[in-house]
């Protein structure tokens, strides 16, 4: 329990803030006008940062607070491109919150640890209690340590996951790949569904292959999968053969691909029926679940993911709380940055309308995921979705969406690689520009 009474602290802060702002200048006066309600956002990634900007632009009378412990955000998307050597460090994929703050977002640099949905407050590890009228929770994922026997955070130093940049940057993998001799074996364990970024492991394998082809052409890539199929599978398999010959081998779950145990000391992984594989560099992408605050606050109901009303992204477990991004269960939409951004717009539209007395527009959800497979070679998957009438599921719009054409010219593949870069520029510009 906190020492403070929940409401007084934040009110005092808000009043003090308003007074300080009033003498500071004109832009901040707009912020002081924000009286229609308090929107608090937990998590400053694709979902949370997008929600913060959308709320400031679309509901200027709403006060927006973003609770995020980090001073900057390194994206998962485009991290794999470091592996291919297209960037030398994470600076091109790292963004600060200064522009969001300039838009009038109050950033609380602290970790949200508990939501009290009865009192409508969020408690932080630094001892703050922040009151909300509406709460958008976008905390991302946690990795399930020990779901693969022996794979805990200590083991991840030897066998990096690089699936959560705030926990382990992708450079943990690039460093090991650089140190590996030519002719080595790179093993990846790909996770079961659902998980963050369904095409991500296969884009990563592609980027490892691009690096090997240039720098270590005798090396091999072995993907041991916990699934029998994966996103954009026919496109990846055809591209791998075309670009990298037989460098990449993919082993499905029913061909004994599922990794059940690891031994960092001997750099081996063990699959379901006891077969052992030794690797020179091993990337374990473990099973995943909603981040801790969602689980600790009852939003997942004891399961892995938060149940939501598909019309609004309101939690089914707590009133006036929305859960967006990778932490919710919203099949058939993927856990992607684009979906987090797009559903942030929906949560803001509904929460904003509730606070300002308006009516939210109709619901329509959108996803595009690009993957880089090689130099000037990009592929994509598209989905357009609508919720059903009672908010219990999401339907893909008929005859739409799907993956890039199986047969396509080099110009089309090059175009998609270029457009992927355009997407990345635009969406990060929305969040942090």
């Amino acid at each position, binding site marked *: 329990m906190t020492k403070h009474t929940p409401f007084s602290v934040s009110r005092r802060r808000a009043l003090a803030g308003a007074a300080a702002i009033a003498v500071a200048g004109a832009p901040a006066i707009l912020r002081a006008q924000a009286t229609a309600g308090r929107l608090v956002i937990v998590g400053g990634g694709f979902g949370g940062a997008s929600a913060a900007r959308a709320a400031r632009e679309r*509901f200027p009378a709403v006060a927006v607070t973003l609770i995020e412990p980090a001073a900057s955000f390194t994206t998962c998307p485009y991290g794999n491109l470091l592996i291919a050597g297209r960037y030398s460090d994470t600076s091109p994929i790292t963004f600060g919150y200064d522009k969001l703050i300039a838009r009038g977002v109050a950033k609380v640099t602290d970790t949200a640890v508990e939501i009290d949905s009865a009192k409508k407050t969020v408690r932080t590890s630094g001892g703050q209690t922040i009151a909300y009228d509406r709460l958008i929770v976008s905390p991302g994922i946690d990795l399930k340590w020990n779901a693969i026997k022996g794979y805990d955070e200590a083991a991840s130093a030897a066998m990096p996951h690089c699936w959560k940049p705030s926990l382990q940057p992708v450079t943990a993998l690039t460093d090991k790949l650089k140190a590996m001799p030519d002719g080595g074996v790179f093993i990846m364990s790909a996770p079961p569904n659902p998980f963050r970024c369904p095409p991500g492991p296969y884009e990563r394998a592609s980027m490892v292959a691009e690096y090997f082809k240039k720098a270590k052409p005798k090396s091999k890539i072995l993907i041991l999968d916990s699934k029998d199929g994966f996103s954009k599978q026919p496109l990846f398999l055809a591209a791998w053969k075309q670009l990298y010959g037989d460098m990449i081998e993919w082993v499905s779950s029913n061909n004994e691909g599922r990794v059940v145990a690891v031994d960092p000391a001997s750099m081996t992984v063990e699959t379901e029926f006891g077969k052992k594989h030794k690797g020179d560099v091993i990337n374990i992408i473990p099973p995943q679940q909603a981040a801790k605050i969602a689980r600790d606050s009852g939003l997942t109901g004891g399961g892995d993911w938060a149940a939501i009303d598909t019309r609004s992204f309101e939690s089914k477990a707590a009133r006036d709380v929305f859960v967006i991004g990778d932490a919710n269960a919203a099949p058939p939409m993927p856990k992607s940055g684009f979906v987090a951004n797009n559903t942030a717009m929906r949560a803001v539209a509904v929460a904003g309308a509730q606070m300002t007395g308006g009516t939210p527009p109709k619901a329509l959800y959108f996803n595009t995921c690009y993957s880089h497979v090689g130099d000037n070679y990009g592929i994509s998957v598209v989905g357009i979705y609508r919720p059903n009438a009672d908010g219990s599921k999401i339907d893909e719009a008929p005859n739409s969406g799907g993956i890039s054409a199986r047969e396509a010219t080099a110009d089309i593949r090059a175009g998609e690689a270029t457009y992927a870069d*355009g997407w990345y520029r635009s969406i990060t510009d929305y969040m942090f520009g």
Partner: protein
Amino acid sequence: MRRWLILVVLSLAPVAAGSAAAQTPPVAANGCLMCHGVNGQGANGIPAIMRVQSRADFTATMKLFAENKKPGTIMGRISRGYTDEDIAELSAWFAKP
């Protein structure tokens, strides 16, 4: 000082209220903007779409994409997901007035 502040508040309030409405694109546009640029200005070879075509041409272009009669990478897959109402809203938002 206080008089200056009041003037600023008075002069900015209608702008803020007006821009609030102006800055909320139709729902379907949320998808467009994250590739075509936050203001529809285009990005890295992805074409600009804001104030580029007339409403009739915008609507016709979307129809051509949907029927696979206009070459593209992903626009065919996208345009088939929108209703006529969605397309009308998009053309009202993006097309030349």
